[in-house]
């Protein structure tokens, strides 16, 4: 087994509060040091908002979990200073192969669109992902940023008040109490915070089980994704083979509903399945095996006063389409700049209602997509199986049927259409950069556009005039001035202008577009800034 599973990354240490009578009030407490809690903490620390992370564990997450990280989260990680580590370690794949029964029906090549810094996605074990985030957090701590992480600190009780939250924390040396002005609950799908506050978590349980085996093989399988529908070695079910770094392969066997878990998890039974799939003579070492079931559900609201839910605690999706961690990262990306403005008194608390609006919209989109994938992979009725099989049979011969094959749709960011923070679109520009959309990347000289955005409001001008800096009620907006003359690849024009000669974009700290017009107009942009910060 990989030893990172066993290394305490933030071992328990006695905290000052444990020896004090007085109860200390923290600015922000994050419960949970999974991918989402760690990202939230890094973002806050980078913005100099004091943050304390507590986790009842002291290691990376155990076992087989996320492996597929999409482009938008990688871009967010760039903003958080952790993108390079992930992409360097991760593996990229472009070729996918689809099998139906004993035969290969087709292959596809996900040729990435040119002119983006980051690939469409990478495969990387979640334990590396978390390890790199902890490393980044430590780096910020060493720089003197206000961040602290406490292992073996388990949230045991919570009290929600109008302007603060009280927490009782269990440790190996007994409990202690603290208070928080704001609490971010990133404590996973089983969220104790959610449970203790008696909040709902409703949705659909899928009656299916999956056996996951992460195996280490010195095999020369190419770096591809193989997906089987109804293969001879797993009749009536599906299977997936996916490459991860360090010669680790993720193998996923659908098992169906009525199964004997203990029987399936016996090493000799896993071995039998693996050999039937990969050949009698394979040599491998089992890194991890587990059986999971899944659900698609979300909370009705992601915020309850001073407690804000993010990641799996707020929404849970099936793993098809890799939308769990990917969407959770976009939760914190959306949340932290808003929370910063509210904490610093530069925006009303109601700005946080837009977190609910925007991220619920995204959660619903993710649930819809992963439910559709599940319905294709596991047909629920005789007729849906007939249709599914017809699609697969046709896909071998006719290209038209291939887009109907659904073994998981790539996770793409939600566009916040209809968000209360958007100003009505006033540019006849491309739809991909309309208000609410995440800014598409584009090459800029030796670098990329997205590296020049983020963390603050930006006025992006393309062949248009505007002041270099404006301030509107505590919000400073800085100009980034570009011209199509420097746009050697044409990507900037394609993604931001279409046929318009010029444009001015107001871009939020999370790199989403708030407003756009063909040219500068002081009154209208001031109104757009107020709107984007919850003041109109």
């Amino acid at each position, binding site marked *: 087994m990989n030893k990172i599973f066993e290394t305490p990354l933030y071992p328990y240490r006695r905290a000052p509060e444990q020896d004090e009578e007085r109860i200390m009030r923290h600015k922000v407490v994050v419960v949970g040091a999974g991918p989402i809690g760690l990202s939230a903490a890094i973002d806050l620390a980078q913005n100099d908002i004091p943050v304390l992370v507590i986790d009842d564990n002291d290691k990376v997450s155990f076992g087989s979990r996320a492996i597929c990280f999409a482009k938008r989260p990688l871009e967010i990680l760039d903003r958080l200073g952790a993108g390079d580590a992930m992409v360097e370690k991760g593996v990229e794949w472009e070729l996918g192969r689809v099998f139906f029964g004993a035969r290969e029906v087709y292959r596809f090549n996900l040729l990435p669109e040119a002119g983006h810094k980051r690939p469409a996605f990478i495969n990387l074990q979640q334990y590396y992902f978390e390890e790199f985030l902890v490393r980044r957090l430590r780096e910020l701590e060493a720089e003197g940023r206000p961040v602290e992480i406490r292992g073996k600190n388990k949230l045991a009780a919570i009290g929600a008040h109008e302007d603060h939250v009280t927490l009782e924390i269990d440790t190996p040396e007994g409990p202690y109490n603290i208070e928080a002005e704001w609490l971010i609950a990133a404590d996973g799908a089983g969220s104790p915070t959610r449970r203790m506050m008696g909040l709902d978590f409703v949705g659909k349980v899928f009656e299916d089980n999956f056996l996951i085996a992460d195996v280490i093989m010195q095999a020369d399988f190419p770096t591809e994704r193989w997906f089987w529908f109804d293969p001879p070695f797993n009749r009536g079910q599906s299977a997936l083979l996916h490459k991860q770094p360090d010669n680790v392969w993720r193998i996923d066997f659908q098992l169906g509903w009525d199964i004997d878990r203990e029987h399936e998890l016996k090493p000799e039974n896993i071995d039998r399945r693996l050999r039937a799939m990969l050949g009698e003579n394979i040599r491998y070492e089992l890194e991890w095996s587990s059986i999971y079931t899944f659900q698609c559900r979300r909370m009705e609201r992601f915020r309850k006063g001073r407690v804000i839910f993010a990641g799996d605690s707020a929404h849970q999706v099936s793993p098809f389409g890799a939308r769990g961690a990917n969407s959770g990262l976009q939760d914190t990306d959306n949340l932290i700049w808003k929370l910063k403005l509210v904490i610093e008194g530069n925006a009303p608390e109601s700005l946080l209602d837009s977190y609910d609006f925007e991220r619920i919209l995204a959660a619903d989109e993710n649930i819809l997509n992963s439910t559709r994938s599940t319905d294709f992979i596991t047909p629920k009725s005789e007729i849906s199986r007939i249709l599914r099989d017809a699609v697969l049979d046709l896909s071998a011969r006719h290209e*038209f049927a291939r887009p109907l094959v659904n073994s998981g749709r790539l996770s793409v960011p939600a566009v916040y259409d209809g968000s209360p923070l958007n100003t009505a679109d006033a540019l006849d520009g491309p739809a991909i950069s309309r208000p609410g959309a995440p800014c598409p990347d584009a090459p800029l000289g030796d670098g990329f556009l997205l590296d020049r955005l983020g963390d603050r409001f930006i006025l992006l001008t393309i062949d248009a005039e505007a002041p270099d800096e404006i301030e509107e009620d505590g919000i400073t907006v800085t100009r980034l001035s570009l011209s199509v003359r420097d746009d050697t690849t044409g990507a900037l024009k394609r993604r931001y202008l279409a046929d318009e000669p010029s444009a001015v974009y107001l871009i939020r700290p999370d790199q989403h577009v708030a407003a756009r017009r063909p040219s500068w107009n002081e009154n209208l942009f001031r109104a757009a800034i107020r709107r984007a910060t919850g003041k109109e």
Partner: protein
Amino acid sequence: MPDTTDLILTPNLDNADDFYATLLAAHEGLSKEESDALHARLLLILANHIGDNKLLEQAIEAARKAG
């Protein structure tokens, strides 16, 4: 909605009897299972040819209501 996206529900087949015979012939000798599969493939091919989701929704609705 422009007329062009409207589903044709008046006679439109070049030769109705010929088409019907061809359709039956395609199913001849097939088991129920094979026929169901053929049926499904045919449906998907035709749907792709039509291509327009609005038309297809109207077709589904017309089929539902007639049963």
